[in-house]
Each structure stands twice: as C-alpha cells, then as structure tokens.
C-alpha cells in the first residue's frame, strides 16, 4: 500500500498534478479505491452498486496533502441486461470499472477492468455514466481523480403464475394450494388460489422447482418447472377428482347425476390454429348420436352434415377422402361402422378426440381436408375400496352397454402388482338379428346379414413416476354383409344377384413416450396391421388387401426459454394386393356408360406397395407471454411419381388480454398435399404420373371468453386447391372453399352444457380447363347446430339437438334412352353436375338419461335417444321412376328411438 508504483489499470493522469506528487497521489487514490471495493453496498433491484469507501489515511509523506476521494452522491444502479436473461445467467456477476472523474465531479471516462460479457459490461458502463459524484479534493480544492467502482449483478427473480380449475368443467378451484420447492430443498414457497383460481408467486430465484397443486377432493398434480431469471412462467392446472367413487347414497336416495370419469388434454396451446376438443360429458350425451363420441364430433363447426346416416366426414367442403382419421397418431381407414351407426372405438376407451378442420400441424400430412385424431385412454387401475363389486376393490373396472343396435363391454385394471395395466373391450352389432328375417321375408337370400364388430386390447405401463410410458394397443373392426337379391329391379338389373360388402382392419400399435430430461421428450409410435375391403355386385367385384406398416418418431426439444423444436419422422409402407373387375369409373359430370353390364368391365390383378416417408420440423415459439408462433415444414415423398411435396406451414396465436376474460386472435397459413391414390396413377383406372393434389389453407380467427363457462370463437377460412385429381384426366382440376365458422360454447357446469355452432361456407371446383366452375358435391351453405343438455336432478338428464342445414346438392336426371344391352332406361344427367339443392334440412333429436346407484360402486344407467323427434321427412335425394320422367323426394331416416342400458362396476 502506498507504493508509488502505477497501477496497470490506471488511466491518464489528472490534469494539473506534478509528476512526483502525481505518483504519490495516484497511489493514494488507488489505495482508497481498492479499499472502497472491499466494502459492499446493499443490493438494488436490477443490480448492486458498491459505494466507494472512505479513503484510508495516506502514507505519511512530507507534507501530506489533504486528499478526499470522489464521493458518490447518486447512483441509480445498473439494469440487469436482457442479454443475460436470454443467456440464462443464473449466478451473481461483478463488473469492476475504473472511473475518471473530473474536478466538477463528472464521470469523464469509464473503463471496464475485466469484461464479463452477456451485456453486463455495457449495463455497468451505462450506469456509471449516470453517476453523480462529489469531486475528489486536495487540500479542499477539487481535482480530477480515478477511482474503481464495482457493480454486482444478481439475477432477477422469476415469477410463476397460473390458474387452478376443475378438469371436468374448468371451474375455478379457490383455495387450492400451490407449493414450489427447489431441487435442493433450500427454497420453498407457497401460494393459494384466489376466487378465480388464479395464483402467483413472485421473487423466485431462478432454478428448477417442483410445483405441486392440491385441492381437497381432487387428485394433486406435480410438475417440474425450470424458472429462468426474469421470466414469468404460467402453469395452468386442471385437477381431476380423486380417483375414488363417491360413497354410496343412503338407501332410497338417488344420486343427482353420474360422476364423470374424464381425462382432458392439458391446456398447452395447440400447435394448430384451431383444435376443437369436446369433454366426455358432451361427447356421450349429445342427442341423436346414441352416446357415441365419434359421432358427436359431426356436430362441430366445419363439419357438414353427412347425408342420411352415412359415416363420412365432410370437413370445410372437402371430399371425405381428403380428411384423415387416426387413432393415437396411427392412420386407420375408417372410424365408423356401416352407415355411421357407431364408431370403431367405444366411447369408454376414448381419452379425447382432436379435430383439426384445417391448418393442422406438420405432425399430420397426406391430407388436404381435416384431421381427426382419436386419443385412447391408458387403462385405469384405480381401486375403489368401498365398492360392492369385489374386483373393483382390486382396481378392476367393468362397463357393459347395450342399445338397439349393438352391445359392448369394457374391462380394465391392473395385472396384479406388476405395474402393468390392461384393458379389453369388444362390441358386436345385432342388426342381423332382425334384418336377416326381414330381408328373407322380402325374398332375398341372406348369407351374412349386416353385422359389425370391433375389439380392443391394451397393455400399458408407466415407469419413473410417469416419465416413461409404454403401451401396446391391438384394435380392429370388421363389417360384412352378403345378400342374394332375387328380385332384380327392372331399372337397374345389374344390381341384382349376389351383393357383398365387407370392410375390416386391425392394428397392433406400440407407443413409447418418454421424458428424457426436463427439456427433451421423445415419442415413438409403430404399428402394423391389415386393411381389407371387399365389394361385389353380380360379376363385378373389388378385393383389396393391404398390410400397412407405419412408424413415427418425434423428438421435442426445448432449445431455449420460449423456444421448443419438434422434429419428426413419419413413414408409411403399405404392401397391397388388389383384384378387381369393375365398370369404368365415370368422370365428374359424366354419366356412367350404362348400368352394370352394359360394357366390358375393367379388370386388374396386381400387387405392389405404397411407400410414403415424410420428415417434418416445427418450432414452437413463445417469445412473449400470450404469444405463440409455430412455423414448420413437412416433406412428403410419394414413390409412385417420385416427387417430394414441400409443405411450409405457420400458425400463430396471440392473447390480447392476460387475465380473464381472455381474448385471443389466431391465424395460420400452410400448404398441404394429398398424394394420389394407387388407382389414380394406375394405367387402367387413372393416369400415370399423377401428382399430389395441393391445398393452401388460410385461416384467421378470434376466441373470446364471455364468462367462465361461456366462450365464443369464430374463424374465417379460405382453402385453395391446385392440381385436383379428376378421374381419368389427372391433375387438371382446381377449386376453392371458404367460409366462416362460429362456435358459442357453454362449457359443462353442474347442470348444463351446450353449444351453438354455425358454419357459412362455399366450396367450388372446376373439373378442367374450359370447364365451368361448379358447386362441389359436398357444399353446404348453412350449417347450424344447437345442442343443450340439462340435469334435472334425481338422476335425470334431458338433452336436445336441433339442426338446420342447407340441403345437399344433387344432379337432376332427365328422360334419356333405352340401353338395349341391359334392358333398362338410362337417364341423362343435367350439366354441370350438382346443380340443384335439396330442401333445407331440419331435425330435432332428444335424449333422456336416467342413472341409479344400485350399490356402492355399481351404477345402472338407461337412456332413450330419439332421432328425428318430430319425424321430419328430410329430403336426402330424389327417386326417379324407370325412365326418369317422374320423381319424388326421397326422405331420410324417420323418427327412430334407441334404448340403451349401461352397467358400470
């Protein structure tokens, strides 16, 4: 100390100081500065300033001048740099500066002694420039001086906010407790949810915490959350009821409404613009659907009414084959049995149904319409110690259901104490029991009456506190019919004789979902199976067997705060064998060359395979709270024409308000490719070299919460088609579909749920250059669906569904000519096709439910589902006489009651 040696970090000498005395003074100042730097001032928000200490007594020197160092009068402190937050700097950082202070006390120059980066140096320099100081003095006279000044930056705390609601109805859970505990146990915080379910914990040091949310009567949930400095993390939690059946009611007292077993998807914002998810109570209580969840989705905006009971999905004016149906990410050829009577997966096994009407994530491809992904529950293994059913006390649960059409059973539970759980389910229709004698009475020989069945088996296990989940799922469906029609219709004699129809598929699916680290998740999915389609009329037939092998792998990696990447591989290999003998398929608007039998059929017998690999990558960006941008790209390869379809897509959501009532705007644009079907590139039935059909989706919408239960969403969409595949012509068509979808939804509360869905749309196609633009076959201008269900008490629940929908399009027929080869008249079709619309469709459906607790844990439910309650004769088409000179409207299904019984053990 007191050495005259010059500090290596010393700056220019102060003005007006002699060389000899200057050395001593500098030494003294340096000593003072060093001393000052050893004393630390209190922390300030955004940074810490260390005040200069009182100067030490200088070394005795002849005659010692009286020197006072600069004194800081005002220091606003340094702002914690944004760059450091982005760089996730979690430890305190010091920045030492050398300040040159002039005789007026102004900081003339600032030098960083040892740069530390991450924006700290710049922040410290900026703060130092704003310092206000008393100048240094010598013998009372202000002089220039140099001092060291240090800023200590402590990472700003994070805050975590959220909302606790019930899983069933999304109602706030006031009083829920939220506990945060750091990984090393040194930091522990608690919060309590307010009346609106909201909670907030501020001032939390950055780090990894276990967040536990608990409320009386609900199963607690825990999450691991990594809090970065200065950030706010939102954790919205929906708690399910504790997995215990309620105590049985006292004798003679009926429970007011059944207790739902519901699992609903988390609240993470979707990767798509619009994902519609209905809750279990909504799914199985919608009138007119027989409690079938997959039929319930036909009521959502964007889905047109299928004619009659047809089991097809018409999404935003697209053809049914443009919409893909998946079971937990594995493509399946059908999701409805014959005539859409019921779906191929029983409602009891469903976890959720995600319906994407357009602008879907790059996770899905090979479709230009929409996507429906059916999520299947993991088997339940919860024990009900109070159940009167002994097996339920061991965790085995059973459901039996029977209605007018089919019967089904579901059994699930744990496999001993192995940690593995199982589920078994099956369904069989009994339409054949009454239809076979009816058909035989009418003179037809029935070999196989219409019958369908489906089956499911699951084997599942979690490891490491559910961080790893593995599941094997075997499921399938079989529909078949075989009739000998003796009475040949004179107007269509080719449709007589043997008539056979069969569709079947099965899949064995293996799925692994694992959380490899806090930031990394992997999802592997593989499936093998078989699809079979058989169709025969007279001597025409179509036999197709295929053996799809599909695989998916997705790696989800959190790259940085607010940045997540999903990279995936989606491969389909489908060997097939086809054997067919069919009349040529007419082009749009073109009449058949005649009824079956009027011209030589086309024949084809071949085997081959479809190979469709795809890669996709998608970023999930949340740069700000309430903002979500999901850009991505998908590459699909089609081996038939050796082309890659590059499909960039981007979707975005922005919350305009951070608190209730939430307002969100959303939008998306993307390219979607639908590869040609094998017959479309086949030289016999199609055009070799046919490319994928392309659709560009554009969507923009708003979501608005009105009350806690009531929300409104509206979305405008525009879909432009290029290279539409026209039968026998290739990619010569084009088209567009546009419209507005609005959903007013009252989420289920203790009594009521309902929604009002309205779609205004238009879908047009042009079948080739020079052809007129025409309304597409599946265009429906207005689709209005109103649904409401109310619990009356005493176990009763009543629901209504009303639909008002534009009639379907049809092509009028006119008197034509006599085809001598088949002995029948062939009408002439009006041109362009689908030029007339059926009258407006309207229908009311009614559902009445009643439930009883027969014993603890044993519940019996019955329902009446009354389809077309006021027996409206809705027009589904036009019937013509033998030469199309007379016609009458053909009406759809009349009033049709269906009774159901359900027993839950």
């Amino acid at each position, binding site marked *: 100390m007191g050495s005259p040696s010059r500090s290596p970090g010393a700056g220019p000498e102060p003005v007006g100081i002699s060389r000899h005395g200057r050395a001593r003074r500098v030494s003294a100042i340096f000593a003072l500065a060093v001393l000052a730097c050893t004393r630390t001032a209190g922390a300030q928000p955004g940074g810490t300033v260390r005040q200069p200490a009182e100067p030490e007594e200088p070394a005795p020197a002849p005659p010692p001048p009286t020197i006072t160092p600069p004194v800081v009068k005002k220091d606003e402190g340094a702002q914690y740099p944004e760059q450091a937050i982005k760089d996730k700097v979690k430890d305190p950082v010091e920045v030492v500066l050398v300040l040159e202070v002039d005789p007026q006390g102004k900081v003339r120059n600032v030098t960083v002694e040892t740069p530390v980066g991450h924006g700290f140096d710049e922040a410290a320099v900026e703060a130092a420039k704003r310092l206000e100081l008393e100048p240094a003095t010598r013998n009372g006279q202000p002089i220039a001086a140099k001092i060291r000044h240090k800023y200590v930056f402590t990472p700003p705390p994070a805050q975590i906010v959220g909302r606790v609601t019930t899983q069933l109805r999304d109602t706030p859970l006031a009083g829920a407790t939220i506990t945060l505990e750091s990984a090393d146990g040194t930091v522990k915080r608690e919060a309590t949810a307010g009346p609106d379910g909201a909670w907030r914990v501020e001032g939390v040091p950055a780090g990894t915490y276990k967040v536990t949310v608990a409320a009386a009567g609900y199963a607690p949930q825990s999450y691991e959350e990594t809090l970065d400095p200065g950030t706010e993390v939102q954790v919205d939690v929906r708690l399910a009821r504790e997995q215990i059946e309620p105590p049985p009611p006292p004798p003679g007292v009926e429970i007011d409404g059944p207790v739902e077993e519901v699992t609903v998807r988390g609240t993470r914002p979707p990767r798509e613009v619009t994902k519609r998810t209905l809750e279990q109570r909504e799914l199985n209580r919608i009138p007119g659907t027989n409690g079938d969840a997959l039929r319930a989705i036909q009521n959502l905006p964007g889905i047109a009414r299928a004619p009659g009971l047809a089991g097809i999905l018409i999404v935003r004016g697209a053809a049914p084959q443009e919409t893909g149906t998946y079971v937990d990410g594995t493509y399946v050829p059908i999701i409805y049995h014959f005539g859409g009577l019921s779906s191929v997966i029983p409602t009891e096994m469903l976890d959720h149904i995600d319906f994407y009407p357009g602008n879907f994530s790059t996770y899905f491809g090979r479709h230009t319409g929409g996507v429906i992904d059916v999520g299947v529950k993991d088997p339940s293994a919860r024990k009900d110690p109070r159940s009167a059913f002994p097996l339920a006390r061991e965790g085995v649960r059973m459901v039996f259901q029977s209605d007018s059409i089919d019967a089904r059973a579901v059994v699930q539970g744990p496999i001993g104490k192995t940690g593995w759980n199982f589920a078994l389910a099956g369904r069989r229709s009994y339409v054949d029991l009454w239809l076979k004698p009816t058909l035989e009475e009418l*003179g037809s020989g029935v070999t196989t009456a219409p019958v369908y069945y489906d089956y499911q088996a699951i084997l599942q296990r979690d490891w490491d506190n559910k961080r790893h989940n593995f599941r094997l799922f075997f499921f399938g469906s079989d529909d078949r019919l075989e009739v*000998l*029609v*003796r*009475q*040949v*219709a*004179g*107007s269509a*004699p*080719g449709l*007589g*004789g*043997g008539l056979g129809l069969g569709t079947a598929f099965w899949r064995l699916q293996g799925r692994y979902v694992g959380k490899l680290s806090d930031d990394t998740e992997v999802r592997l999915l593989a499936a093998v199976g078989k699809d079979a389609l058989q169709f025969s009329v*007279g*001597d025409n037939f179509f036999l197709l067997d295929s053996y799809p092998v599909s695989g998916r792998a997705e790696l989800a990696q959190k790259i940085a705060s607010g940045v997540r990447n999903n990279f995936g591989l989606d491969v389909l290999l489908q060997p097939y064998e086809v*054997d067919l*003998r069919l009349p*040529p398929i007419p082009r749009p608007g073109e009449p058949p*060359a*005649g009824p079956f*039998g*009027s*011209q*030589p059929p*086309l*024949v*084809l*017998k071949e085997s081959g395979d479809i190979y469709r690999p795809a890669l996709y990558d998608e970023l999930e960006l949340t740069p700000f709270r309430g903002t979500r941008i999901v850009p991505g790209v998908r590459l699909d390869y089609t081996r038939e024409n050796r082309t890659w379809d590059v499909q960039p897509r981007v979707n975005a959501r922005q919350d305009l308000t951070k608190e209730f009532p939430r307002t969100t705007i959303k939008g998306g644009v993307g390219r979607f490719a639908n590869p040609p079907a094998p017959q479309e590139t086949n*030289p*016999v039935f199609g055009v070799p070299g046919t490319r994928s059909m392309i659709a560009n989706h554009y969507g923009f919408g708003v979501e608005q919460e009105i009350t806690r239960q009531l929300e409104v969403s509206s979305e405008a969409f525009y879909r432009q088609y290029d290279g539409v595949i026209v039968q*026998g012509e290739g990619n010569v068509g084009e088209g567009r579909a546009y419209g507005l979808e609005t959903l007013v939804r009252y989420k289920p509360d203790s009594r009521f749920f309902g929604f009002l869905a309205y779609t205004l749309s238009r879908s047009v196609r042009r079948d080739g250059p020079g052809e007129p633009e025409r309304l597409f076959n599946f265009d429906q201008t207005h689709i209005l669906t109103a649904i409401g269900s109310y619990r009356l008490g005493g176990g009763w629940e009543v629901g209504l569904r009303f639909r008002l929908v534009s009639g379907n399009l049809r092509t009028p027929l006119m008197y*034509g*000519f*006599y*085809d*001598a*080869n088949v*002995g029948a008249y*062939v009408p*002439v*079709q*009006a*041109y362009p096709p689908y030029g007339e619309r059926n009258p407006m469709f309207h229908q009311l459906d009614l559902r009445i439910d*009643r439930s009883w607790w*027969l*014993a603890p844990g044993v519940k019996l439910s*019955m329902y*009446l589902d*009354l389809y077309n309650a006021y027996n409206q004769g809705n027009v589904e088409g036009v019937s013509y*006489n*033998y030469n199309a000179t*007379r016609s*009458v409207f053909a009406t759809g299904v*009349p*009033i*049709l*009651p269906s*009774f159901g*019984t359900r027993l839950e053990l």
Partner: protein
Amino acid sequence: MRAASLARLRRIARWFLLLAVAGAAAIGVACGAGGFESQSKVTSVRIFGVRADKPYAKPGETVTLEVLAADGRRDKPRPMRIFWIPFVCINPPEDLYYMCFVPSGVGDAGADGGARLELPFPIDGGTEGGDAGAGLPAGGDLASIPQNIDLGPFLPQGTTFSFRMPDDVIKERPGAPPYGLAIVFNIACAGQVRFVPPSGGSRQQIPIRCTDEEGNPLGPDDYVIGINRVYSYVDRENTNPIVERVTLDGVEVDPARGITVDRCVAKRRADCKPVLIDVKVSESSWEENPSIAGQASQREQIWVTYYSDLGDFRDEARLLFDTKRGRIDQSDVEFRPPYEPAEGTIWAVVHDNRAGAAFVVLPVHVK
C-alpha cells in the same frame, strides 16, 4: 336382496317399460312411402329389348339386330314406327355413346383417336376384306344434316337392322382384353324424326327428336331412343340365352297360344288371386364369362324382365342365374289379372350380362 333394492329394480323396470312403449309407438309413426307405376306396366311407346343374332360378332361378320317394341298408349294419334340411324359408330372414346356425335379433334373426341362412323355396309357391297374400316370421323358431317325436316323417309324402318362388323374393329384397351365396339342407334317414334344438333350444356343428349308435324317435341310416352352395343372379340364367344319353356302355375304353356287366366274379382287389388309365371332358361345358357389371366373366371348373370299391357306383376324382373350360385330356384313372378275380361300381351325379355337376349311374347286371355 333387500326390499329397498327390489323396489328400486321395480322402478327401473317400470321406467324401461315406459320407454319401450314410447319407442314402439314412435316406430309406428315412422312408416309410409309412395311408389311409381311399375316399369312392367306398358302404357306408352316402349322398347323392351334388342337382340343381336351374334352378341359377340367377329370382325367382318354381319350382325342383325331385332327390336322388340310395343305401343301401349291408349290414344294413338300417330302410329309408332321404328327408325334406325343409318350409320354404325365404331369405337368411340372410352366407349361413350355420346362421343359418336362429337367431331374428332374437338374436346374429348381426340383422346384416343375418336369414334368412326361407318355405313352399315361398305358401298361396294361389303366383300370380305373390302374397304371396311374406311368411314367418316365421328360427328364429322352432322352439320350437313338438314334440320326442321322429317328424316323418317330417309331412315331405315322396321324391327330389324343389319350391319357388317368392320375388319379392324378390335383394338387394344388398358385393363381389358382387346375388343371392338359398334354402336347402333334407333328410335321408336310415334311421330316424325328430326335432327337437333347438340347444343351447350349436357353432351349426353342424342341429337335426334321425335316431333309432331309442326316440329314440336313429343313427350316420353311417344318415343324411345335406343342404344345398342355389339362387341367383337378375337377369341370370345357369346350366344343368346335359350328359353326352354314358359310355365303358368308350374304348368308348361305354349307361348304361341298364350295363357288364359281368370279376371280379378277381389275388392282390393292386393287380394286378387295371382298366377305364377316362370321363364325357364337352359343350363347351357349360363355361359362362362372369361376373365383375364390370373383371375378366376366367372359365369354370366341371367335375368328376365316382364312387361304387360294389362294386369300387373309383383316384381319387374327376376334373377334366373347368379354368377356364382347358378340357377335360382325361386324365379317365378306373380301376375295379377285385371278386373275386366280382356286380351293383352305379356312380354318377357331374358338378358345375360354380356349383351345376350331372348324374347318371349305371350298372349293373355282374361276371362
């Protein structure tokens, strides 16, 4: 079981019964439908069938078409006549009949070379290996056909029409064995036949009309346009079905003499006592229907269609042979006689699904 549980079950049973009754009542409401007059009922100008003497003709063979037609109109201001369009359309694109009237090189016509219009017989008399194959392009000279005149005097008339299958008619086809197609058009018209050129809109309309003397189009009761396709294969044969016998209530009848039945005396039409009519076709008519290599061959489907100008049939047509099951045992059809004594006709046309046909004309005497 405890009394409370039993009471609960009884309440459930009552509730279920209530629902069942409501459902049954609802089903009762849901019945009811209307229908059209059967195709079997002949009340207008009708073509019942056209029979080619060689359903699968070889190139160079002469084919004769015979039409079975009747005029069932109550009022007949003009007689029905059968006219034939005097050309044969050879191999129209994709076998579409209306492409015969689309000029080659226009629109779809040129897709696979276009159709060819042939005269029924070569001008030089049609010697084997003559100039068959030379013809007019489809639609090529339609514009030269005068409009607004009665074409009847210029058209062949009668129940038969013959033409010669061109030597080069057979051509390769994707997904099918090589074959040739000749299309012949005819019209049963109770008026005049006029040419109406194809106009915009539907291309499917055949450009001929049946009109009155002023050129006003007549209705569907007054005319029928017929389309007749004759196929030609290198190695495939087809013969017309052979009718072995016709039975009335199981007893064979002489088609020339017809059948005699009692008139209906029941108050309700449904209570009229029916007779059973059956047309039996020989087993040999159930020919093999060859397929391509590698596919199992099938056999023909054969059915019979019934028509009558009095009384009515319960079914318009009956299956006689199924492609797999063979002969159908129950192939008879119920015929209900009219209320009044009358003389009429039953027409039965047997078809196979390879353009073969056979006719039965059965006089009916109602007592």
